[in-house]
């Protein structure tokens, strides 16, 4: 239902471009499209309206000096994009370390926002940079939140201060205070206090949060918020700001497909910077926040950087390196390697989903609707390889008629399907030998698949000539 968002946005601009000079009515209909797009991305109405007002004022200034329609369209697009980036990242900064350690970070947020997981991610992030964090289990409310934090701490080798069993037993204020004292005495340089989830309208629990704050005097209070949150982001962030106060925002579950417009609402209404983004189930899936990426995401402009990251994650770097070494040393690429790559590919998600992440992918998806990608082909191919013995996977030449019949039976397919795969595989293998003898770089290994995990730095958005932004690029290319 949101697929058409970027298409709509692009078309709004291309209709602008086709005019010799842009009229006030053209502008109004463009702003109406932007408004709709932002509302569908969960940006709060008041923020949308203020945003449109700001954009139109800035555009008017910019437009007065530009004549041709296409340049005007470009100018407006730049204003929209840069205004978004400005609101989202205007005040971006890192955690302020205390002059007198430990640096105390307190987490606050609604139930289910992901505080406990985030506490672990934050601890790992700073531990990896050479700090010595201590996790403090002050969520004594949710059943087994304490145990969860202990398991998390153990998995990343970060100690957890948990004197109380939780499940409604124990005083979170005392626990938090004792945790900081403990960290001081043991010379940890950072304390991360996990607190119970609470509702903005629950006065008692907000009071408890501010009591914890007063007891531990945090250097940073981070408001943890789910990227999928809707219009309630306004009320809730305001309630937390008034009730306990916060210095920065962390967006969680950004690996979902929510546009995350709430981020814009929160940043714009509370004037607090979004500092971190949490992007996956693993404790290493955590990064500092990139306003440009978020702006593209809210506008539905595709997200090449995230795609690259997903590829990097899916394609195990150890395996990739081994494969590359194997290829360079002259060993053959086997069906086993092929299976690894297929599994990695399906881990990245469906083809149509991946396409949605490419710039202009939204429209591409529309175009290819009839010509569906056959996702099940990958499943079938995997089934065939998985029905082979390890030896067969290593040496496909042993595959005689009876072996092929057994494999077909095991995979629930026809012998001709098995033949087909083996033939295609041998052809590919042969081709790769030729490539190797011809001295083509080893990065090509993998039957044309993105095996070698492109690093985000190698991905084009920084190129001067072409924008990574589909609407903008469409504009550039059509000039």
């Amino acid at each position, binding site marked *: 239902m949101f697929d058409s968002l970027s298409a709509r946005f692009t078309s709004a601009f291309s209709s602008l471009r086709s005019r010799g000079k842009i009229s006030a009515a053209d502008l109004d209909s463009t702003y109406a499209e932007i408004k709709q797009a932002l509302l569908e991305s969960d940006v709060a109405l008041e923020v949308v309206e203020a945003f449109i007002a700001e954009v139109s004022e800035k555009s008017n200034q910019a437009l007065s000096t530009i004549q041709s329609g296409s340049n005007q369209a470009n100018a407006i697009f730049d204003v929209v994009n840069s205004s978004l980036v400005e609101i989202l990242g205007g005040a971006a900064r890192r955690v302020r370390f205390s002059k007198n350690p430990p640096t105390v970070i307190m987490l606050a947020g609604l139930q289910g926002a992901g505080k406990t997981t985030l506490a672990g991610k934050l601890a790992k992030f700073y531990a990896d940079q050479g700090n010595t964090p201590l996790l403090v289990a002050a969520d004594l409310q949710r059943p087994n939140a304490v145990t969860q934090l202990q398991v998390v701490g153990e998995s990343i080798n970060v100690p957890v201060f948990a004197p109380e069993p939780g499940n409604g037993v124990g005083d979170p204020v005392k626990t938090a205070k004792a945790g900081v004292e403990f960290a001081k005495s043991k010379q940890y340089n950072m304390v991360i206090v996990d607190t119970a989830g609470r509702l903005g309208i629950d006065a008692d629990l907000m009071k408890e949060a501010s009591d914890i704050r007063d007891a531990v005097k945090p250097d940073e209070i981070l408001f943890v918020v789910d990227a999928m949150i809707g219009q309630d982001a306004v009320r*809730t962030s305001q309630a937390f700001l008034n009730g306990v106060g916060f210095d920065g925002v962390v967006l969680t579950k950004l690996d979902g497909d929510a546009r995350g417009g709430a981020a814009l609402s929160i940043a714009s209404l509370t004037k607090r910077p979004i500092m971190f983004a949490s992007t996956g189930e693993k404790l290493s899936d955590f990064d500092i926040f990139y306003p440009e990426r978020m702006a593209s995401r809210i506008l539905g402009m595709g997200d090449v950087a995230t795609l690259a990251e997903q590829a990097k994650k899916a394609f195990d770097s150890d395996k990739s390196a081994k494969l590359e070494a194997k290829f360079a040393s002259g060993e053959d690429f086997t069906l086993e390697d092929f299976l690894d790559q297929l599994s990695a590919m399906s881990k990245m*998600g469906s083809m149509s989903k991946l396409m949605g992440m490419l710039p202009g992918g939204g429209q591409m998806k529309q175009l290819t609707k009839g010509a569906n990608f056959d996702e099940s082909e990958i499943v079938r191919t995997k089934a065939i390889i998985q029905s082979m013995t390890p030896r067969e996977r290593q040496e496909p030449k042993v595959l005689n008629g009876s072996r092929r019949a057994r494999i077909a039976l095991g995979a629930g397919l026809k012998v001709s399907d098995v033949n087909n795969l083996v033939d295609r595989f041998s052809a590919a293998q042969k081709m790769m030998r030729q490539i190797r003898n011809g001295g083509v770089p080893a990065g090509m290994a993998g039957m044309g698949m993105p095996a070698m995990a492109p690093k985000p730095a190698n991905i084009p958005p920084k190129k001067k000539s072409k924008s990574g932004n589909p609407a903008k690029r469409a504009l550039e290319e059509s000039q």
Partner: protein
Amino acid sequence: MGLFSKFIAKIKGENSFTPADWQELESELLASDIGPTLTRSLLESARRVKSENAQEALKQTLTSHLSTQSRASIANPDGMTVVMVVGVNGTGKTTSVAKLASRIKNSGSSVVVAAGDTFRAAAVEQLQTWGTRINVTVVSGKPNGDPASVAFDAAKRAAQSQAQFLIIDTAGRLHNKSDLMDELEKVKRVVEKISPVNEVLLTIDATTGQNGMAQAKLFSESVNVTGIILTKLDGSARGGIALAIENELNIPIKWIGTGESESDFSAFDAGEYIEGLLT
């Protein structure tokens, strides 16, 4: 006060609703998370309402946007009823499973709960703590074990002990992760070797914005969702996305969660809900 109460009062009284009033209504509708499309459609309907029967007409309009499916729980007439609870991370699955189990137990039926969230740290313990609290048997497997095998074992044990209900908790997963959705399908498939899954309940967090629609759509495609549990309605969020889901996907809201205790859980009453919007 309901979203439409001011509108009805004004239309009935002076039969006037100023542009500023319309704007206020629009912003309140949007603020409830029903989304821009449904907001526009409701506003158009409201513009056609006549003063004589404003309340009745709006009631009809609102009802027409709700799901036509029954809100009653689906039970297995001959044997064990199997309920699966699914949803994205942090929407309140485990708590909802406990609440539902407690409710079934209090109504006098026997119930077994399967701790199928083998992924999140301490999720099994969380459910076991609930199990002790509400006195319900919780079947669990190894941490990071195969959730399908936990569910299968639980189904087997529940069937052997002739339990009337089996509720399966599952790990939170984002609907756009195809490997995790495959895993969920497998859980359902494997359980169905023992007994059909009668009901699949999707937890939707009331604070969720427009992404809730994608959640409902993809979970439905994967495991055929039969109803929604709208959780965390005790906060300031109004949960309008669940109505948008009813309207677009025809999946009924069956339960609502309104707090952290097992009794903060009730069946969704559509009539009462609409009445609440109007008065």
